[in-house]
């Protein structure tokens, strides 16, 4: 397995590895931090690194941006990078900002309701409410529940 790790292979795959490191940093922020805004920033980092992963697949060494000369006389000697990932990622960026804004609105609403944007704080409040309700229902059931 290790004989394929030639110098050329390593240099050719460095870009993927860089984006994986970025992705995992974003994922770590999402999983380990309990502040909701920070989670969202982590999610953004994850998203952008996925975008860059896709774009880097469309790159051709020595190629140029996929824009023809304005007189449309295309020189067959010029290589252009693959425009299809660009198109897909353009759509994805706009959809990403839409979901981000929705999440931010949700955070504002959560803060209004719970007066905190910290996940641990929300869980605390929720469990207090739950305990109070259980006690209430328990008394109503005559101490059997």
């Amino acid at each position, binding site marked *: 397995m290790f004989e394929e790790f030639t110098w050329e292979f390593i240099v050719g795959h460095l870009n993927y590895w860089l984006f994986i490191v970025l992705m995992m940093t974003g994922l770590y922020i999402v999983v380990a931090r309990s502040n909701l805004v920070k989670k969202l920033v982590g999610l953004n980092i994850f998203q952008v690194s996925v975008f860059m992963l896709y774009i880097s697949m469309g790159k051709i060494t020595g190629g140029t941006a996929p824009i023809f000369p304005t007189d449309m006389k295309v020189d067959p000697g010029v290589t252009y990078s693959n425009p299809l990932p660009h198109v897909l990622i353009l759509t994805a960026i706009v959809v990403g900002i839409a979901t981000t804004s*929705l999440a931010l609105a949700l955070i504002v609403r959560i803060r209004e309701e719970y007066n905190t944007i910290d996940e641990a704080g929300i869980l605390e409040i929720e469990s207090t409410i739950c305990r109070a309700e259980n006690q209430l229902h328990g008394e109503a059931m005559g101490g059997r529940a």
Partner: protein
Amino acid sequence: MLVITALTVVRTASLFAVVMLSGVFSLLSALLLVTLDAVDVAFTEAAVGAGISTVLMLSTLALTSRHERPSKLSPVVPLFVVLVTGAALFYGTLDMPNFGSADAPAMLHVYPEYMERSQHEIGVPNVVTGILASYRGYDTLGETAVVFTAGVGVLMLLSGLRRRREDDEDDDGENQRGSG
């Protein structure tokens, strides 16, 4: 640079600084996208990622709090999850073609056809614009639907905000009057 910015985001507790760093991250990634020949994407990323989303996050911070409470969770389990996922992804990249190679599978099937046909059929010099508006027009339509839905959702979530606040203040005022 990107990695340093991302790691700083992990360490920083001030949310204002975190939001600014996310703007820096977007701008750096836009620069990287330019070097990867994706000028349209870089343009959008700089405008949307560094511009609009930073403004949105700042306005959220203005409505909420600015500082992160120190986390009581242990970092071991998340770190384990992240490392396992990262290892799996790393294993997946071993089959990928080398960066920038012209004979990668992505370059052999659809790519030449699109490049060839968009010269005659569309006549727009920018191939990305041509594909986005013509061949994949329905994608853009769906994207518009998504953005519209998100906008309606945001409006519905935030529309009662001011009214509810005034109600709260009224309640507080009445309570104070009652106690006083």
